[in-house]
């Protein structure tokens, strides 16, 4: 029983988490029936199971809310701010109850009782009086006939028709017929021209369809409202399309129209049947939590303890190393037969590695729920109006990274809201919209993920920061610093600029802890700000922590590893090119780029017998050349951290074991390029 109880708590927490997201959505669209339905269903499910495991209070509170939302979804009650806020409080209570084995302290007990009272019939009746006049929200469907007749040279305008059709498909239920009548004979076929026409029946409004056709000229598409039963009687439409589709006679045209509408009707019937089916099942007595999860379109998933994944990851690492050892052995001994086998093994272990890495990747939106809620709560507490705009929430990161990111991100967002964004009055005075915007942007770039948190608040005054830094003895008065350098002083330990210590931020633990956390993840942090325009904090994080594709090079007998993500090309130095290399420049694609001699950097004596090799690196949009003795080949480096003892060797980001069992250092390219 204990085990079932644990499982219940775990599932319930996930449900409550889901509910929180749903509520935040609901806040933005208070009349959306689907969302209200979703809230109702979660309450219903929780109520059903909570009692079974002795969580009577959870059962009570969900029962109360279920009643309230039942009235709302029936249209008898209008959802208002107050109800929504109470629902948020309930979510917190449920979370608390799940953690405390259904126990509450006195204060929370009062809150709890207040919420329960909300669903009293008399309370509900009172509310109903005020919300009686609400009208049915319009969920009317709009059916449109669309004919897309692109000009023959539309491709030459740089228009992507495929993307347009895909976008159109996303609008709603649709049937698409491609008309190939005018396709020319093969001999006269020009692949850069368009001969096709598209006929579409779609359940979407005219405005959004027109929007999809943004890049098409007015005479390239026709949108005409239709109704399914009378499409063949629609004279206007008939004359409109006859011009373009050239039917032999009216019968053929009617036949054609009937045909496509029937096909559409078929699709829409199938869909509606499915929906009805789900609806019917929903009413079947009490569902289990799992059933609910499956039906609400959440991806099928298996929960696995993270340690198991770590074990798997270790195993893959070993496999990758074994693969490279075998390859090395094979290269030496030259068994022709083994070629294919070794290659296959390597290919498979690489795929295996990618899949295992992928399992560990989680979309960033898993922590967005908490962040969203944080913004919501803070805005309320501080009486500020704030919109959280999220971009790239589906960007994926290693689970360990995501878990360790939540704290720092919460801190950064807190800072934005507490210090960055001004009060509504102040904003209006500055000519800004009273609503502040916190933007959360995540995107990939190379082997990194960037996360940016921006606000459009008051910004940071670099002079103040500089002064504090001087007062606290972080920098000398005489040193000149650029604005960027000044902003990045904020992350120094013990640096806090809050004039007033509030509950929200400024408790002494500040950006320095954030910086530490990010560094631990092999990430970097950068702060930029503009007075009265806002502040942005950028986090740069590695996609994953453990394996990288890399190039194995050698200087004298020293093995070094360069991450492949930086490499643009490898070259052998020609004699005449060498002349320029004396001046620490290297000619690449007709341009001179800085040349870094690795043997000098690492103070290793070069072997004269080797002709130098050049590895061309690209970082941001600049190129650099690295001079090395030998390029051995590609290598999948399993990164092993360097121990404490190597703490001051900051040009290396780690070490790895090569196929023959020897050690190689992984060069931290960014640091190298910054320092040389």
């Amino acid at each position, binding site marked *: 029983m204990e085990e079932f109880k644990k499982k219940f708590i775990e599932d319930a927490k996930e449900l409550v988490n889901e509910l929180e997201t749903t509520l935040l959505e609901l806040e933005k669209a208070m009349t959306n029936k689907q969302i209200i339905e979703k809230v109702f269903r979660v309450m219903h499910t929780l109520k059903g199971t909570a009692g079974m495991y002795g969580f009577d209070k959870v059962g009570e509170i969900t029962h109360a809310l279920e009643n309230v939302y039942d009235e709302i979804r029936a249209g008898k009650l209008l959802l208002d701010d107050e109800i929504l806020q109470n629902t948020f409080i309930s979510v917190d209570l449920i979370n608390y109850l799940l953690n405390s084995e259904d126990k509450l302290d006195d204060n929370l007990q009062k809150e709890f009782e207040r919420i329960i009272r909300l669903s009293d019939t008399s309370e509900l009746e009172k509310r109903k009086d005020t919300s009686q006049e609400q009208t049915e929200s319009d969920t009317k469907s709009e059916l449109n006939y669309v004919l897309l007749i692109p000009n023959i040279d539309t491709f030459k305008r*740089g228009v992507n028709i495929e993307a347009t059709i895909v976008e159109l498909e996303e609008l709603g239920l649709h049937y698409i017929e491609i008309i190939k009548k005018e396709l020319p004979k093969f001999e006269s076929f020009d692949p850069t021209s368009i001969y096709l026409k598209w006929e579409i029946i779609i359940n979407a409004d005219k405005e959004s369809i027109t929007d999809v056709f943004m890049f098409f000229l007015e005479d390239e598409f026709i949108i005409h409202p239709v109704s399914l039963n009378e499409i063949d009687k629609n004279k206007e439409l008939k004359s409109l399309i006859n011009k373009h589709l050239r039917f032999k006679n009216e019968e053929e045209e009617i036949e054609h129209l009937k045909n496509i509408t029937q096909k559409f009707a078929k699709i829409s019937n199938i869909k509606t049947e499915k929906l009805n089916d789900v609806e019917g099942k929903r009413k079947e007595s009490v569902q289990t939590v799992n059933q609910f999860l499956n039906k609400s379109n959440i991806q099928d998933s298996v929960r696995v303890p993270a340690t198991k994944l770590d074990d798997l990851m270790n195993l893959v690492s070993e496999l990758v190393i074994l693969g490279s050892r075998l390859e090395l052995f094979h290269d030496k001994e030259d068994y022709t037969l083994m070629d294919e086998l070794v290659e296959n093994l390597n290919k498979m272990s690489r795929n295996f590695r990618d899949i295992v890495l992928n399992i560990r990747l989680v979309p960033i939106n898993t922590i967005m729920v908490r962040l969203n809620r944080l913004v919501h709560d803070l805005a309320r507490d501080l009486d500020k109006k704030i919109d959280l705009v999220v971009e790239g929430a589906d960007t994926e990161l290693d689970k360990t990274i995501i878990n360790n990111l939540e704290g720092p991100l919460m801190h950064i967002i807190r800072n934005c809201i507490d210090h960055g964004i001004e009060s509504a009055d102040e904003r209006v005075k500055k000519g800004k919209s009273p609503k502040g915007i916190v933007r959360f942007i995540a995107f990939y770039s190379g082997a990194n993920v960037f996360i940016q948190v*921006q606000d459009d608040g008051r910004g940071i005054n670099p002079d103040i920061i500089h002064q504090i830094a001087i007062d606290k003895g972080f920098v000398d008065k005489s040193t000149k610093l650029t604005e960027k350098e000044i902003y990045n002083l904020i992350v120094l330990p013990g640096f806090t600029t809050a004039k007033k210590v509030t509950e929200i931020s400024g408790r002494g633990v500040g950006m320095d802890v954030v910086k530490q956390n990010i560094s631990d993840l092999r990430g970097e942090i950068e702060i930029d700000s503009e007075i009265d325009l806002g502040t942005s904090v950028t986090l740069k994080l590695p996609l994953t922590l453990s394996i990288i594709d890399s190039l194995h090079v050698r200087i004298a007998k020293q093995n070094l590893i360069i991450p492949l993500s930086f490499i643009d090309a490898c070259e052998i130095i020609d004699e005449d090119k060498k002349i320029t290399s004396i001046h620490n420049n290297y000619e690449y694609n007709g341009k001179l780029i800085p040349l870094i001699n690795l043997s000098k950097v690492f103070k290793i004596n070069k072997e004269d017998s080797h002709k130098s090799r050049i590895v061309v690196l690209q970082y941001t949009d600049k190129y650099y050349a690295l001079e090395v003795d030998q390029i051995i080949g590609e290598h999948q480096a399993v990164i092993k951290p360097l121990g404490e003892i190597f703490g001051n060797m900051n040009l290396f980001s780690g070490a790895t074991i090569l196929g023959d069992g020897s050690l190689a250092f992984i060069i931290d390219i960014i640091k190298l390029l910054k320092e040389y």
Partner: protein
Amino acid sequence: MEKKTIVVVDDFENTLFVVEFTLKNNGYNVLKASNGEDALKIFDGKDIDLLVTDLNMPGIDGIELTNRVRKIEKYKYLPILMLTTETDSKKKELAREASVTGWIQKPFKMEKFLAVIEKCIK
């Protein structure tokens, strides 16, 4: 995911700055030029995903720039967006002649601008 490269051309420095800033903040790679002549130099065979150009510029204007870029084999089917103050009816006519992919009317809201860019580049 590769960063997409967008070339932005405008002789008005403010527009150039704002557009560059917005695009960069939204994860695009931006190359800019303040006139048509400089812009053409950018089209030297590198991978470019979109050209956003002003219509009215001294020297080579937006239309001519479009025509010249389209003449280069590699950029024949490049999406090209033109920034303009022209009114609606006139611009469709111009679009047809210049084989421009789409128009963005100035002044524009950044959200709308980004939406059009995203649509165009996909």
